[in-house]
Each structure stands twice: as C-alpha cells, then as structure tokens.
C-alpha cells in the first residue's frame, strides 16, 4: 500500500482544458510519469465549477492541484479563478493552481500574479520535464 502510494506524485489532480488534443497530452504525459493517482478532466470552466458545487469538502474529495488553461470559450481561466474564489473562498488555501497556456502575452502572466493560489505559470506543451518541476515544487 505504501509502495502503491509512493508510485504517484499526487493523489488527485483536476485539469481544465477545452481542446481534446491538449486533454490527450495532459492525460498521457501524466500517465507516463505517474504524476497523479487520480486525474479528472473538465472540457470547460463551467463543468469544473459544477463539480465543486457537488463535491464533498472532505480532504479526500478535494484535488491537490488544478491545471488550468487560460484561453477558453465562454469562461476563461481568470474568470474561473474569480468565480471559484468568490464561491468557494475557503478552498483557495487548500488547492494550488498551475496555469497552463500557450499565451506569451505578458499581461496574462501579470494577471496571474493577482491570484495567490496560482503557484506556477507553464507554457504549453506540457511534457515530462515540466511535470517534474511541478513535482519538485510541491513535494
């Protein structure tokens, strides 16, 4: 059981990503390096919000990390963060956020600084080396 536990860097991770191909990359890269025991993928920010509305606030239920895309239709990454902090303010200390984006716009980077629970800003594509940096940071 202990060996099983050590196999994964994280117990539960959520990724919010609208494009199928990037979902595929996230899922398979994480799988390759045993990044998380449990990965939940949401195709939109709204789906993720609904998930939090229904979730039990026990530590087991909550994810340790959220990988969040910025550029998404209807609700973008920053709008999600605002709504999340507003609706589930008590969660913001418990869940760290990693922004995963193809944007090079410095404004995006600067905006991300406004959210304290954003711990890391990563440029796409996600790969094993980048996941390694995340693991180093949190474990």
């Amino acid at each position, binding site marked *: 059981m202990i060996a099983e536990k050590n196999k994964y860097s994280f117990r539960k991770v959520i990724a919010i990503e609208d494009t199928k*191909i*990037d979902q595929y*990359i996230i899922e*398979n*890269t994480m799988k*390759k390096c045993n990044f998380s025991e449990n990965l939940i993928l949401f195709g939109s920010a709204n789906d993720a919000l609904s998930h939090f509305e229904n979730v039990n606030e026990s530590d087991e239920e909550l994810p340790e990390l959220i990988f969040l895309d910025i550029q998404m239709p209807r609700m973008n990454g920053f709008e999600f963060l605002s709504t999340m902090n507003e609706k589930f303010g008590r969660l913001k200390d418990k869940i760290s956020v990693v922004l995963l984006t*193809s944007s*090079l716009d410095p404004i995006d980077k600067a905006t991300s600084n406004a959210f304290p629970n954003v711990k890391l800003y990563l440029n*796409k*594509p996600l790969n094993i080396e980048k996941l390694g940096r995340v693991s180093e940071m949190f474990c």
Partner: protein
Amino acid sequence: MAINNKVLLHHLKEHFGNSIPIDLLPFVEKLNDVYNQNESSNNTNGELVKFKNKAKPTEDCEKLKTHNSLIQKASKTGSWEFDYPAHSIPGHNNSGDSHVSYFSDEVYRILGLEPGSLDINKDLFFPQLNPYDLNLILENIANADQKIKQYQEEHTLKMEDGSEKVVLKQSDIFFDKGNGSPTKIIGTLQDITEKKKLENDLQSTKKKKDSILQNLFNAYLSYDVINNKVLFSNLAFQKVFEDTPLQNKTSEASFLSLISDEDKTGAYTLLRKLAKGETATYNFRILLNNGGFRWLESRLVPTLDSDDGRLMQIELIANDVTAYKQADKRISDVKNDIQKQLFSVGEVVMVLNEKLQLTYISENVTRLMGFMPDEITGSALQRFVHHDDLENVIAFYKNIVPGNNDENRLAYRLRHKNGDDIWCECAAHNMTGNPLIGGIINRVRDITFFKDHETELISAVDELKRVNTNLEDFVSVVSHDLRAPLSSMQGILDLIDLKDDSVQFSEELSYLRGSITKLDNFIIDLLNYSKCTKSELKPESICLEELLDQTTTYLKFMNAQNTKVQFRKNVKNGVLFYSDPKMINIILNNLISNAIRYSNPSTAAPFVEVKIIANDENAQIEVIDNGIGISKENQEKVFDIFYRVTDDNNGTGMGLHLVKLAVEKLSGEISLESENNVGTKFSITIPNMLNNHN
C-alpha cells in the same frame, strides 16, 4: 554804250590818259549824252558850247572824285586798275612789263600805306599776299585768257606789323574790241576783316549750339511752320524713329504721321496754344512696328513773328517715357489685381452697432451670402446666424470691448440667401470710438470648405485608430490561435518520443519538430514586431539584471542542446531605471539567442557576455560573443527585415530588425563590431526614461 563825243574823249584823255576808271563809266556815259545834245542844239555857236563844256566836266569830275573817295572810305572798299601784261596780247612783243596803273586812296589805306605815298607797281601789292593766295591770283589772271570776264577772290594780306587782313577782291576783265584779247583788269578791294571775324564768331557760336543740341539726351526738333520744314534735329531725335516703319527712311517732319490717332486729337488745342505764344506740353504715342507704343513726353516752345505775331517756328524737346509709362501701367495693373484678389478671396467686412445691426457691409458679401449689400444693411446680424450658434454669437460680441486689440475669433454658421449654412470665421474688433467706423469691425471668412474637411479628417483619424486597434488585437489573437495548435503538436511529439517504438520514426519526427520550432519562432517574432511598430511605450521602473536573468533562464530552457555556450554577465546597475521592459526583452532575447545560435563550433570555449552599465542618463548594454562573426558586407544589411546571413533553419530573418525597431522605439542607438570567426560585439545605448516618466 560807247563814248563817241570827240570833245569828251579829248577831255577824258587829258585827265585819265587812255583808261577811264570803271566806277566813273556810268557818269561818263551820261556826260557823253549831254555833249552830244549840246553839239546838236548849238551847232552854229561852237565856241560857246566849247567854253561851257570845257569848264563843267572838270568841276563835276572833282565832285565825283570827292564823293567817290568818301564812299570808298566809308565802305572800306578801294578800286584799282591793272594793265594786262603786253606779252599776253597775241601778236604783241614780249617787251613790256605788266603794271598797275591806278590805286584809289582807299587801296593804299587797306594796304597800310599813305595814299599816293609810293609809286604804284606790282611789287607793292603782291608781296603782301599769302603765297597760297598769290598762286590763286596768278591762276585767275591766266584763266582770263579763256574769256572769263569777272571773278572774285578772297584772300589775306600780311601787314607790316604782322597782323592779317582779309580782303575781298572783285575783278572785271576788259578785252580788246578788235582782237578780243584781254587788255586790263579793273577791280575793287574791300577790307572784310571785321565782317569775317563776326562771321567766324557767329559760325563758332552756332557750332557750339548745334553740338550741344546734337548731343542732348532729349530729342530736339526745330520746325519752320511757315515753310513746313525741319530746321534742325539732333541725334536723340532719330531714336523716335527706331522700330517704326519710317526708320532710316524719310525726313524728320514725317514723324507726325507716326503719332497715334488718339493723340492727334490733342494737337489742335496744342497749336492754338502755341499760336498765342504759350509754351505747351504734349504727351503722345509713336506707333511701333510691333503694334506697341513709344511714349514721348514733349515740351513745345513757339517763336512768333515780331511784326505780325504769326507762328513762325516751333522748338520741340521730347523725352522717351515709355519705360515710366509701362512701369506705371504695371503698378496700376498690380493694384487692380490685388484689389480683385481682395474682393474675390478676401474677407467680407461688416460693421455692427451695439444692437448687432449691420451699419456697413462690403460689396463682396454677395459672394458669401448671396445678398446685395443694400438688401441687408440695417438688418440685425442675428437674423442670419444659425439657431444653434446664436447664443455663442451674442455672448461673443458682448465681450468685445473697445480698446482690446486682441484678435477675437469665433466660427459660426450664417445663412445664405438660398438657405444653405455657411461656416464662417469672424474676427472682431470694437472700434466704436473711431468716428469713421463707430462700431464693431467684423471680418468674415468662409470656412465651409475647411469645416467640411475637418469633419472628414476627424472621422478618417477615428477610422484609422479603430483599424489600428483592431489590427493589434488581430495580430495578438491570431498569434495566440496559431501558437495553441502548434504547442499541441509539440506535446504530441513529446508523447511519441516516450513510446518504445518511436525510434524507427526518430528522423522524421525530428524534422517535424524543427518545422514546429521554426513556425513557433516566427509567430513569436510577428507578435514582437507588432509590439515594436504599433504599441505605445509603457515605461516602468525596471531592474535590468532581473530582466537579463529572466531572458537567460528562458533561453537555457528553450535551447537545452546548446548549453555548451558559456554565459557571462557583468552588470553595474544601482540606479532607478525607467524603460519599457517588453522592448528591452526583445533586444536582450534576440541578441543573446543569436550569440548562442551562431556560436563558433570550432571554438573550444564558446561564450556570450552581457555587460550593462546604467546611470541616470542611460544604460549601456554590450552583447559580446566569440561566435562566427558577421562579414563586413553583411554588417550593413543585418538589421534589414527578412535579411538572413546564414542558411540556418531556425532563423526568421526578423531578429535583428526587431532589435533595431525596439532600440529606435526607446530612442536609443545601436552599433556593431564584428570579424569573421572572431566574434561580434553589439553596443546599445538606451535612455533612462525617468525624466519622461515624471
């Protein structure tokens, strides 16, 4: 008439010998008649007749001699007689000498001698002649053979005291009735020295006068009215004929035909004036060949006959004033032009009283508003002002007080007679205090054209701004949307790498990866390009060292395979530095990545060094490498857009162009030194925008 009375002939012979003085001839002829009459009426009493006739001629002769002598003295004319030389008489021996047979007293005096003081001979007369004149006289005497009966000579005499006398000698030659040969010369000798002197004086005075007139700058013409002929005209007068049909052709009088018809009409009045003896001025035009005119300004001076007061002569003095006339005309043309211009494009002048009624309005208002000045004089200005502008207009004129010389301007709309709105700019001065004006001077200019274009211009600028904003958005959105699928492709490639059986495709995959990297670099450069050309600068307080660290970290991450290039930094940066970090990022990023990309593979220790020294004024940045270098001919071109020195696949041809744009955007300067296979040094100066920022 021959003298035939024998008694008379006898007496004459007693008194005069063989020759009777020529001046006595008429008298002798009369005597001849008297003798003949006496003889025929008193034939029986011959003695008485003889007695009577014997006493009377002697008495008369004496009387004649006295009279004659007086006449000769008074007229300074002597008489003489000269016997022809015997040898010249055909058939005669050459034995005898010619000799002077008679000199009157006056001849002696003219020669400067006492009358009768010397014996008469040819030597007395000839030596006093000029040698030149002597020849002439001898020639004349010789010519007498050819039956010349009369001749005149003028010559000079040399007096003993050295002075000269001019004499006129008039000679009559007498011929023998029988053989026709010349017998004697009888003549007069007149002293004309004084007359000659006066003549000479007169001549030289006249010459002087003529010379002055001749060389006078003004044209001069002396005209004899009675005989209708020109007495004198000078050189300048000839210029009147230049370029006319009469040039070098006809007499001066014909110039009258050249006077233009318009000016001929004035001639009648002119002549009447002259006939009264008044001096007159006459300006007239001479018609030229080319259809033009020569303007002459003349002054005419009449001379009237002292007896009957008739106009005898006119002197005309004229100046060519064509140039003045032309200049005059040009000035008046220009004046007209200016006036025309003023009225065609100029301002409309209105004078307003305190109720803003139009007390005066200039003619050109018709062009502006369609009204005749009379139509609207007395009306209130408000009647023509656009409703929306009325309040402003009233307030504007209320504020214009006397004595304020500032230009007060307001643009508002006036209504044209046809109902159109005309945008006007009005400049107003209060001149109520000026009795000539007594109101507000309002100068009105039509600016409808500018107003129309102003609106157009504003909307054009708005449109451009909008398009520009859209374009910037467009570039960043497109760039992002292009990058997102690219990064996905990269991600998939990374996943393929992780598969065990990927080895068989490794070459193909590496090409694919190269293309993706190149496309991604190009998109990044495009994004930067739009930043450099379009965005406004956003200066902020920056730490140059931090910016450099970020760049190198990022580059290390992106160029993991090139880590053998050693990075050195040398930063002296203790001041507050203001600049746009995006621009500095573009500069550092491109220069350092170039240094890494073009490192020299044959160098043992490739490096790139960045030196930064910043102060209150500026920052000096140097990027130095020991890479492959840039050849001289390429150094000029490397900053051009899309210029690529090598065939390196990853270059976009935009890197150094972006650097240059960014440096220029920051008002900085960039220069480069490089040598092939030795290395390259870029030196950049960027101003500290601290002052601009505050």
